[in-house]
């Protein structure tokens, strides 16, 4: 008789994308292997070839319907870099507003729809209970809060981009449509409400953090490298240099995105269609890094806006720098929501935001190659395109945000599986009463 078995979880739910989980247990419940099987891919790398480069951003953003804005912008920036084009300053400000609006709605979606059900209904609640639909029904105030935050972000994305999903106005050389004064006034007017909802979200998140402190501090804590953007040490999402932090918390690299190939390695696992990105000088799997909110918070020396900085200080006081606690991603996300709201308000008050000087009229295609990077909600997003003299894409390389995390996710799943199956640590975890009864 043997107690060896394989556990398959298919599909992994509350995930954007397609994934299954395979846990192989050996004798005595020993965890032999944990695989995060990403089971689909679409091959954008190949089918972007031969396209007119200025049209590529509208195709490439279809990589993700939850975060099309960062794909659109990374793609446009890559074409601009290949053609040596610098858009007017006001266009850059509109793009920053665009990206922050998406950051807000995506983080709202992530916090309330993907993560919060585990905290509010409790991780051991029946599957039919553990979802945002049930939050809307059982905790209508929380549900409404979530919907309003997402709505503000998505409406603003739509006002800038013409569509809330797969928006269209960013083009090599600037923006095809200026941001209107009517829209500016409307979103400024709604800003007070947004700030209030954000404060309420922070309160809710604080309660969750306090209630689940044991889980945050003890569960799936794994040391990895971290990758994130910064501008002179400040947290940054639109344009800056990239930092790599080692598991000990030292910044080991600081480089402009165009030199990424020296530092980025892409490991192809046999059990996933999503590759694992890692810090090449350290090799695989030692160099596995994580991106996304926790990584950005780890690599930044400080936040550029006051309330976000306050929140960062509180976070660091409790968890240190770096923190390797996987559950701290949720807290980091809340700090980023505060930052997004503060930066959005600042940009909406900037006179340049309604400038009509948002597009160059003399953009010329040329042969070259260019890298475009932004921070997407799920991590550092990189598009690299090669174009010919007519401005047709001849080759691409894409390192999408989530792939920076898959190696780290597997590492934390392995740790969690050992804690659950070998050490039964979950039985001793101090879990609060769920808010949804």
């Amino acid at each position: 008789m043997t107690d060896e078995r394989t556990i398959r979880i298919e599909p992994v739910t509350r995930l954007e994308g397609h994934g299954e989980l395979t846990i192989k247990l050996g004798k005595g419940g020993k965890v032999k292997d944990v695989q995060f099987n990403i089971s689909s891919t679409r091959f954008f790398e190949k089918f972007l070839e031969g396209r007119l480069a200025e049209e590529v951003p509208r195709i490439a953003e279809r990589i993700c319907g939850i975060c099309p804005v960062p794909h659109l912008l990374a793609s446009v920036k890559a074409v601009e870099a290949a053609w040596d084009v610098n858009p007017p300053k006001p266009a850059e400000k509109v793009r920053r507003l665009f990206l922050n609006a998406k950051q807000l709605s995506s983080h709202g979606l992530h916090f309330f729809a993907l993560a919060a059900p585990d905290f509010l209904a409790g991780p051991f609640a029946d599957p039919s209970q553990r979802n945002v639909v049930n939050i809307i029904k059982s905790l209508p105030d929380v549900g409404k809060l979530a919907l309003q935050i997402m709505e503000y972000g998505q409406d603003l994305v739509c006002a800038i981009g013409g569509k809330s999903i797969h928006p269209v106005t960013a083009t090599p050389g600037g923006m095809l449509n200026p941001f209107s004064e009517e829209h500016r006034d409307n979103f400024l007017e709604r800003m007070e409400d947004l700030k209030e909802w954000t404060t309420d979200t922070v309160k809710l998140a604080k309660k969750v953090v306090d209630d689940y402190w044991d889980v945050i501090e003890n569960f799936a804590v794994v040391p990895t490298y971290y990758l994130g953007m910064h501008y002179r040490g400040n947290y940054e999402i639109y344009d800056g240099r990239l930092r790599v932090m080692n598991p000990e918390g030292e910044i080991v690299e600081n480089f402009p995105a165009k030199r990424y190939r020296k530092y980025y390695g892409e490991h192809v696992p046999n059990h996933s269609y999503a590759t694992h990105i890692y810090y090449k000088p350290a090799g695989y799997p030692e160099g596995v890094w994580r991106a996304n909110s926790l990584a950005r918070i780890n690599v930044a020396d400080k936040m550029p806006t006051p309330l976000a900085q306050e929140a960062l200080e509180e976070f660091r006081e409790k968890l240190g720098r770096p923190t390797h606690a996987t559950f701290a991603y949720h807290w980091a996300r809340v700090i980023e929501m505060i930052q997004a709201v503060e930066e959005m308000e600042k940009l909406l008050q900037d006179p340049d935001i309604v400038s009509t000087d948002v597009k160059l009229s003399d953009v010329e295609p040329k042969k070259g190659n260019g890298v475009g990077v932004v921070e997407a909600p799920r991590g550092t997003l990189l598009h690299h395109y090669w174009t010919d003299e007519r401005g047709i894409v001849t080759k691409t390389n894409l390192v999408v945000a989530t792939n920076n995390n898959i190696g780290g996710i597997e590492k934390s799943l392995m740790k969690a599986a050992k804690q659950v199956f070998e050490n039964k640590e979950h039985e001793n975890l101090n879990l609060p009463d769920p808010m949804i009864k």
Partner: protein
Amino acid sequence: MAKRVAFTQLTSCWGCDQSLVDLHLGLLDVIPELEIVYWPAVVDYKLKDLENLPDQSIEFGFVEGSCRTKEDEHLLKVMREKSQTLIAWGSCSCYGGVQGLGNQWSIDELMERKFKTADTVTNGRIPEENMPGFTDHIKANTEIVPFELRIPGCPPTPENTLEGLTALLQGEEYELPNKTVCDECPKEREHKTITEFHRTHEGKIDPDRCLLDQGYLCLGFATISLCGAQCPKVNTPCKGCFGPPPGVIDHGAKIISALGSVVDMDAEELREYFPDTIGSFYFTDYASSYLSKITSRKKKEETT
């Protein structure tokens, strides 16, 4: 009584899901009408739960995405068995989506590029363990199993989905409009003969005049009007992502033939303006075109 609904995602970007969530507070009206029996993005039911449902027990089954993997094909067939009314939701489901552009190459070429020759890959190989395997080429889901309803769009707007869903809940007919994006576009159209085309990054667009009249390839004239002309309204040419109006089978062929009547240039000249015919004229529906079927058949013959 609440209706039993399922939302499934084949290979896609999940934008159709996000579009449903974009109903925001409107969700508060819809959700009580729905009993969600499967929706992996949101609810923790597993594939087995879906497979174990009795046949025809889902009243409305929404299918987003297209079949890029064999697992997708399985899920599509399960959804067909379990659903009374099956809805092709979004342009991937209706026409194959942007990933249909991959049909220009064989699946081996696509895999080679991604898993072996990408610049940053350090150990090229094709993943196999616990992996479902890929389909040879992308097809519209409606060519694989029969559907009762189509709601195209990349993605459908929240209003499109709400309209379809409301019609279903009230037992009414849902019909696609026989109009084009131009019918909803506020820009002034003079029906000028086009003598030259500009690429979207070139020059500056006059916000009041028809984009096509100005020489930008705006496909509104050959695209179904469901989106409210959202792109031309923000000075961005329509790329046809909602597909053609009802009755047109090959969107790109229709666009090319219609262009013939508005341009004053010979075929060679027109061709020079559009070196990437497929990308320019078949944005989200190449997989359902005649051209793609011919290419896919040739690719298959070459490999066998």
